[in-house]
């Protein structure tokens, strides 16, 4: 996962509005669970070269309603396996958003960054502060919900839940 209180630098790969999870990872691969295998099919219809173009650490910049459609967790698994380490979008579908956060793939919501960021050029994210920079431009993303921040701080929902179960803390939202 990218650091929370330090800069992450990655190159920007852009997609448009209403990119659905079928486009991210087609349904015919849903019986697969191996991340590497899923990563090879990421965006294969939209951009057959996606896997070879994307380098580990890259940032996906999307338009409105990113990740709409199916709840398949295979979609963020495939994005991570392909090398994407953060998503910036004008808005995101609820289920995709949660799935990504749960796997430690942060999704930053910023309509302005989504509209203005340039493809193929590096950008910097300071996750904890919600700061996005590219060249001379900078944007501030919507603040993360407390629970979202807590999941990311733990490195994902599996680790957060593991700790909560170990502490017998499963009633209500665990603050802090």
């Amino acid at each position, binding site marked *: 996962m990218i650091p929370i209180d330090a800069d992450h630098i990655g190159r920007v790969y852009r997609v448009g509005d*209403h990119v659905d999870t*079928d486009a991210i990872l087609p349904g015919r691969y849903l019986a*697969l669970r191996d991340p590497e295998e899923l990563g090879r099919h990421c965006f294969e219809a939209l951009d057959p070269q996606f896997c070879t173009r994307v380098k580990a650490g890259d940032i996906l910049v999307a338009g409105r*309603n990113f990740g709409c*459609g199916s709840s398949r967790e295979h979609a963020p698994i495939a994005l991570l396996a392909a090398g994407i380490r953060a998503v910036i979008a004008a808005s995101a579908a609820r*289920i995709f958003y949660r799935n990504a956060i749960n796997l430690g793939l942060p999704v930053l919501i910023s309509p302005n960054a989504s509209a203005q960021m340039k493809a193929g050029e590096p950008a910097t994210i300071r996750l904890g502060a919600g700061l996005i920079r590219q060249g001379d431009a900078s944007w501030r993303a919507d603040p993360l919900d407390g629970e979202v921040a807590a999941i990311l701080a733990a490195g994902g929902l599996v680790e957060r839940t593991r700790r909560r179960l170990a502490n017998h803390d499963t*009633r209500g939202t665990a603050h802090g």
Partner: protein
Amino acid sequence: MAKTIAEKILARHAFEGDVSSGRIVTIAPDVLLLNDVSGPIAFDRFKAMEARRVASPERVVLVADHFAPASDIASASANRMLREFASTYGIAHHYEPGRGGIEHALLAELGMVDHGAVVFGADSHTCTAGALNALGMGFGSADLAAALATGSLWLRTPETIRIDLTGSPAGFVTGKDVALSVTRELKEDGGLGAVLEFGGPGLAHLGMDERFAIANMAVEAGADACAFEGDEVSAAYLATRRRDTGPPMLPDDGAHYRSRLSIDLSALSPLIARPPSPASVVPVESVAGERVDQVYIGNCANGSLTDLRQAASILKGRRVAPGVRLIVVPATQQIMRTAMAEGLLEILAAAGAVIGPSTCGACFGGHFGILAAGETAVATTNRNFRGRMGHPDSHVFLASAWTAAAAAVAGKIVSPATLSRDADA
């Protein structure tokens, strides 16, 4: 404070007192639903969480429906993982082909969703449960793993969009057309962060199967969930499936809505969603003449008895056009048996339909009816994204069973009313 249906339902299931919109709350659902695609990943995560037990095994429903009967070795292994998890953790509600069906249709049929219930499902179409005056919310596998382990999940409480239904539908207008009128109005993301609340005098003209068809597509407008008002129709449906039924939940006067929408059912004509978006909705007439290769009648809300009856009413005494494949998938084993007893399957098969097992297969491009490059389908399903049912260069139009069956007969898209008039002439 005056509440919407969603706020009332969430308040009953929340650990926190205040469930007004925008709050972070923890909700303990009545039912957790997983399938053979989302389940295996959830079980991996459950293990990684070092969870030792399922919090409430009696609330868990496992359904093999996506790749079931298994289409290959990977899916056979996934189906086996469901079987093993059920056995290890004492989950009685585990359904395989021949005893179950497509999860959302099956869950309702089993009577597991009461008025006012909350269902958390690892499938986006869990919103279908909203037809029963309940809240069904879709999640991914990690969230459902956490819910299996702890019995609850955090939520940011949604706002509510009120949709008032008025009038009564004209001929060949059914639940699917209402669903498509909703995506036409709200577009792909108008429902983000909201529950769609359906009510109004028009509701009385819609049977449960039609309500499920409408609820099923709430997520195609980006909604968190939907909630229909409970009434005599939903109460009668539950009475035959449950020992006790909770009172219908209705919104309070003065409840706060993000926005309101009114749909006059009497003004609707048969609608169709053009590829590649469930929100690209036009009257069927405006795309009439579009040639079709395959017609698919099935899915988690439109493989109902109502759909099969509508299809049979069109196909009775007719033949599927040469060069067209008609695939009919009753959504559950029970629907299949009733359709058999009513003679519907004979009518459909005599017309040239292939009757498939109760599976999600073709709807999501998994198996049992994949489209080749350049092919066009009319389907009663809920998504027509690029490549949804097969090759990225195939095309899917979404419509009602009446419109789909009419396309199968004509070999092209045609208004079911037109087809009916031609036959009478």
